[in-house]
């Protein structure tokens, strides 16, 4: 089985490095060192800034050739599709921003050029797309529609849904979820997507499955603190999520682990952001970015028939001083491998279509003065995979 990788930049700790290196070098998996049973034979790199590792990797892995265009990477310089799967990593690199502040990563362009080769060759192969589909909702929807109409397996998204959970627990299938919260960190059009995927991989398992999202409202600055004081999102859930964190910034000098008051949080968090939205069948979810307070992703939900919230941390062993290896990419790559091997995406692309739309809606709401936006385009219905796909072994 042959794979092509289409990436923006290949630099230390860029997503391409994490993902493509795992395909080339292997990685620790299930208690041994795993070499994916497939060959990465071609690479397209859109930018090669200082620190580029693609040439080093091509030299060390002569089975992988760098091609100057996406078409050539997919045809291996010939005139027909010559690989069995495509890995698209359009994260990191230097790209212009939209007026709303979204980085215009070229995932849509990468996807379109890939699909053109599929069409010209009369054959399609599975595509893995790292992170959301596109910053632009229309393009994302088009990517999704193309994958369905052409009938090739398509997997995308964040590593949050598939990484370790601490504690190692799953949302019970068919749970009646009333409300859910994720408290995490990072910026708009960036880690907000990871927070949304954290919520969605849990919520999609509720009774009836996913029904889509009816509206979204974003909060930041004073309006965020005001919403927090008015319990626009459940304080109990917020607190439960915070109690799963391993990275609470100490709010008081001399203490290493204290629970913050809202005044502490206001002091520590300069630019808080929340996206609150309601699913068509009722549950309300809130994704909260609190850079300055935590550096991890924590989830909590109220379930009918259960007095205490269900809560856990989606654990990222982050190489920002805590570790040296971003091993949360291992389960992501492993799920991509499963798709390439079986021809079936282990979890539905509709999850990422929805979180892509939510990310864009969050940006739009902030841009529109934090107003509440109806989201009829996000009435996306789907059923989750039967099996849990997060890292447990």
């Amino acid at each position, binding site marked *: 089985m042959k794979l092509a990788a289409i990436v923006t930049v290949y630099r*230390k*700790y860029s997503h391409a*490095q*994490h993902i493509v*290196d*795992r395909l080339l*070098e*292997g*990685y*620790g*998996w*299930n*208690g*041994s*060192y*795993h070499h994916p049973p497939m060959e990465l034979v071609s690479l397209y790199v859109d930018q090669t800034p200082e620190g580029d*590792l693609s040439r*080093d990797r091509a030299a060390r892995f002569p089975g992988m050739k760098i091609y100057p265009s996406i078409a050539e990477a997919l045809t291996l310089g010939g005139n027909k599709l010559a690989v069995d799967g495509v890995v698209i990593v359009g994260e990191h690199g230097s790209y212009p921003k939209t007026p709303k502040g979204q980085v215009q990563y070229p995932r849509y362009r990468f996807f379109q050029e890939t699909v053109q080769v599929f069409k010209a060759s009369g054959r399609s192969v599975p595509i893995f797309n790292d992170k959301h589909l596109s910053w632009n909702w229309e393009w994302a929807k088009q990517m999704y529609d193309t994958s369905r109409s052409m009938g090739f397996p398509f997997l995308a998204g964040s590593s949050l849904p598939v990484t*370790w959970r*601490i*504690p*190692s627990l799953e949302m019970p299938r068919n749970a009646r979820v009333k409300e859910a919260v994720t408290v995490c960190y990072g910026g708009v059009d960036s880690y907000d997507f990871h927070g949304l995927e954290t919520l969605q991989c849990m919520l999609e398992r509720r009774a009836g499955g996913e029904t889509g999202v009816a509206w979204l409202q974003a909060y930041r600055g004073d309006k965020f603190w005001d919403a927090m004081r008015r319990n626009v999102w459940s304080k109990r859930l917020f*607190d*439960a999520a915070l*109690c*799963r*964190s*391993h*990275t*609470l910034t*100490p709010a008081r000098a*001399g*203490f*290493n*682990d*204290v*629970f913050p008051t809202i005044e502490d949080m206001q002091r520590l968090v300069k630019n808080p952001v929340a996206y609150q939205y309601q699913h068509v069948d009722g549950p309300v979810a809130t994704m909260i970015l609190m850079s300055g307070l935590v550096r991890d992703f924590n989830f*909590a939900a109220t379930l009918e028939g259960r007095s*205490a*919230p269900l*809560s856990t941390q989606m*654990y990222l*062993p982050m*190489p920002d*001083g*805590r*570790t*040296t*290896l*971003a*091993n949360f990419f291992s389960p992501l790559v492993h799920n991509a491998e499963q798709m390439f091997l079986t021809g079936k995406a282990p979890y539905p692309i509709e999850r990422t279509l929805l979180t892509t739309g939510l990310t864009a809606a969050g940006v739009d709401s902030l841009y529109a003065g934090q107003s509440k936006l109806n989201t009829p385009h996000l009435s996306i219905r789907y059923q989750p995979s039967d099996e849990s796909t997060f*890292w*447990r*072994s």
Partner: protein
Amino acid sequence: MQNWNRDLSRRSFLGTAAIASTLSAQTERPKRIAIITTIYRYLSHGQHMGDRFLVGYPHDGEWHKPNMQVVSLYVDQKPEGDLSAQRAQQFGFRVYPTIAETLRCGTDKLAVDAVLIVAEHGEYPTNSFGQKLYPRFEFFTECVKVFERDGRAVPVYNDKHLSYSFDKAQRMVKESKRLGFPILGGSSLPVTWRLPDVEMPMGCQIEEALMVGENGGDDAMDFHALEGMQCMVERRRGGETGVRSVQTIQGDVVWNAGWSIDLLSAALSRSDTPLGMTVKDGRTQDLIATGELRRLVTQPVAYLVEYRDGLRATMLNLRGALRDFNFAARVTGHGVMSTQFLLTPEPNVTYSACLMNKVAEMFATRRAPYPIERTLLTSGITEACHRSQGKRLDTPQLAVTYAAPKESQYCRS
């Protein structure tokens, strides 16, 4: 003496009854806690463990405040950055100049319900075997004197190993049994999160075990790694029967010392901190297959532990290759099982909340959730490994037998 016994058993009964109903726990009078520590400075064990009883800690998805009140503190040293006076003022307790006064809170009788001994960090001499001579035995003995004189004994937690000396450690355990008070000790490795959430099946047949970490030579870190390994192997068939011999080796002989490479491979596959090329350019590495391991670790150290029932366990210090603690064992019928003991980051060090929750549980129920013999044996293994100096050392004194707790005690909820 008769009164003494009656008082002990009555208190024991009351303690158990109190916890039987968690709903009523908060209406009970808070347990009075004395903290005896070497130093109380930011991020010292004394501070992060002691503070758990002052400000609470995350547990089971909530901020848990045990129904306990710190009423007195003894600090052996007050280096720059000492926080004891500040804490005492803020939380309304007193710092006393002696351990006896701390336990009696300035009265003439024992006036606390439990004692937290944390003798880690601070300036203390190191012996010729590289062990730091923390005064845990001495602190404990002072407490026992008060218990004995005042005719009442209360639960004691002793952080980390009982003592650098197995002889002293054994005396501590004997004293707790003689006076009938519960004692809990040890590291947070046995109780912290595991990645993956793996437990040794109770009564399993372990063929070989291996722990790998960044330790060796430093008895503080060695103890953590050894107790992490001990909490896994103690669940094997027949329970713990003690250790027959230990041997510490270093240098190239470590690579061919009889331990199995597949166990090391499994343990390393759990690591999130490979060094060398991973630090340079972020790559994943099969440290064994590439030969990088031997290049990165210039001074490997192995502790070879032979148990009395024949089990062989190895603790490998591979400083330079990784920075976390990973375990692997070959288990009959289960293949190789492996996991990482997760040491969560500073400053929260939430693993110490996992440990203090066990301590709070013992303080409340007067029952230790796991046997002190685990910590006793590990204290003895640590000392013997430091004394081995390259030679195989028979350890007849380490015929420590005990049964592992039936229920898993590490953090998983």
